[in-house]
């Protein structure tokens, strides 16, 4: 059996789905469970080609409910398990995700957003933000990384396993159909060669040893009898989530100090936002750029400071305000005004952003 898929590091020219599969292998994922849906299919295709070479496994399930719940089962037995989905599959997978939240099961989910509502398009959107951050009948006790580049896909897929297993919250890599299908250059690497320590998983169920002698029995539940009992559970989870959130939060802020308007965006749209900002700066406009990398937890304090300072934000997204809701909630009380470019299910170019800002400044 081959030792490692990537020795040291190397440049490659790959699709995003291929990058995710490489990252999952490099990040020492043990097993993938999945159900076909565009635009995530090739994650499974590449994983199933590589997996046997490295002693890894795959199960194609009957639907996304099953893909999600088998993933949880894999984690419970101590495997680094993950799945990938999109759109209507993401909808179905909210049920297992809520169980992962409640039982602190560190499953990793890769979401390649497609158009919605319903079957819509298989192409692209940022319309799964609300669902991925706060879906299911829960309180959003999850970590969501929104990636913008193939390098992000590689880095954050590896990181997602570490975050999940370190904090024991389900963790998401939120990409989209453009990132999934597009080819671009990326540096793929063996994380250990870069000094990234990969957290070893441990089983929840079926630990070695004899019950009552070598180990305690494990009983895991998600059902509670009284309101008070549940309240305790949820509040202690909230407390823990809030206490680790500052360690998890990631964002990228540029040219915000003297900015009169700051473009706020996430994911692939932030690439257009970044080039718009650079172009406008070149032309003498005082424009800044803010990109939350984590949508859960959200870099709220950081963004509020930026908003208070600049007094104007331009929120840009490929959805009808899902990301903007996160922004508004998190800067509540700030006097900043918000302009928007909302293009549900459609890409955004830097030209549009430049034009909008020139028209408003």
């Amino acid at each position, binding site marked *: 059996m081959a030792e490692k898929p990537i020795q040291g590091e190397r440049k490659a020219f790959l699709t995003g789905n291929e990058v995710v599969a490489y990252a999952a292998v490099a990040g020492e994922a043990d097993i993938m469970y999945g159900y076909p849906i565009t635009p995530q299919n090739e994650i499974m295709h590449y994983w199933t080609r590589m997996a046997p070479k490295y002693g890894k496994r795959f199960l194609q399930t009957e639907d996304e409910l099953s893909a999600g719940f088998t993933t949880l*089962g*894999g984690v419970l037995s101590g495997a680094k398990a993950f799945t990938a989905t999109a759109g209507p599959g993401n909808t179905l997978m909210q049920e297992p995700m809520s169980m992962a939240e409640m039982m602190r099961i560190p499953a990793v989910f890769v979401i390649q957003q497609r158009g919605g509502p319903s079957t819509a398009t298989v192409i692209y959107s940022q319309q799964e933000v609300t669902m991925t951050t706060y879906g299911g009948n829960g309180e959003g006790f999850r970590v969501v990384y929104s990636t913008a580049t193939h390098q992000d896909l590689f880095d954050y897929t590896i990181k997602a396993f570490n975050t999940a297993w370190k904090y024991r919250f389900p963790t998401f890599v939120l990409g989209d159909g453009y990132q999934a299908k597009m080819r671009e250059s990326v540096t793929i690497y063996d994380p250990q060669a870069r000094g990234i320590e990969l957290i070893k998983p441990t089983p929840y169920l*079926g630990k070695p040893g004899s*019950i009552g002698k070598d180990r305690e029995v494990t009983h895991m539940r998600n059902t509670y009898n009284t309101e008070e009992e549940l309240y305790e559970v949820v509040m202690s989870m909230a407390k823990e989530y809030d206490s680790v959130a500052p360690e998890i939060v990631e964002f990228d802020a540029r040219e915000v100090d003297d900015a009169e308007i700051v473009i706020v965006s996430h994911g692939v749209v932030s690439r257009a936002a970044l080039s718009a900002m650079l172009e406008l700066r070149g032309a003498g406009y005082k424009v800044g750029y803010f990109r939350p990398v984590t949508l859960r937890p959200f870099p709220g304090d950081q963004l509020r400071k930026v908003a208070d300072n600049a007094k104007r934000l331009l929120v840009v997204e490929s959805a009808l305000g899902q990301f903007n809701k996160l922004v508004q909630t998190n800067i509540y009380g700030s006097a900043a005004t918000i302009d928007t470019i909302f293009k549900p299910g459609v890409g955004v170019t830097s030209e549009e952003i430049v034009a909008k800002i020139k028209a408003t400044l």
Partner: protein
Amino acid sequence: MSVAPRMPKCWREESKPHKFCPGCGHGLVLKALGEAIDELGIQDKVVFGADIGCSLLAWDFFNCDTVQTHHGRTTPVVTGVKRANPDLVCIAYMGDGGGYAIGSQHLFNAAARNERILAVLVNNTQYGMTGGQMAPTTLPGQKTETSPYGRDIEQAGYPTQGPEAVAAITQDGAYVARGTVANLRQLKGFLKKALENQMAGNGFSFVEALSTCPTNWRTNAAKTWEFVEKEMTKYFKVGEIKAPGQKKEA
């Protein structure tokens, strides 16, 4: 002084007396299952998945590692455990609503893939936990909260023949049986064979147990047993339905 009946060794004393209603069949099925686990000496290797339904009350029933799941989703959770660690002995425990309605796609696909797990399905002809609604297994003419005039086969079809359906779609290697709480010795035998079948790596194992729900049936002890033994068996045939190599022997 009365002597308490002997508990299976793998039962968890601290959670007894158990949480099921008096006269409920769940406790009996779990007694048979506990004895089978004891006889095979596999307590430390068992992962027990409890569905949502009255099955959820079994979340701390055994001194075996247990996970409570969602309604209908115990089959995939346990499948995921087994796929990642084939050394464990994995049991999915569910009601008839969990297995034949909301989780039927999981049950039948796990069967078709010959997953090396055991699914135990408690057939009490209705939804116990939610207060006695019609289930796929409700008998023709049987009154439930959502079939107050009796199950109308024109509208709701006939009771699901689960083990027969599973037997029809599984490959050789599968073990399928229907037992009853009216014959615990036989039920234990089926469960033990089913566990052995999993441990031998032969294939999917499925045991349906005809069970009682006096609370929602609103029956006394005599009527409860009469319903299981006389009414349910008109539609649900008790016995071994499929065992590895059976065809060749016949």
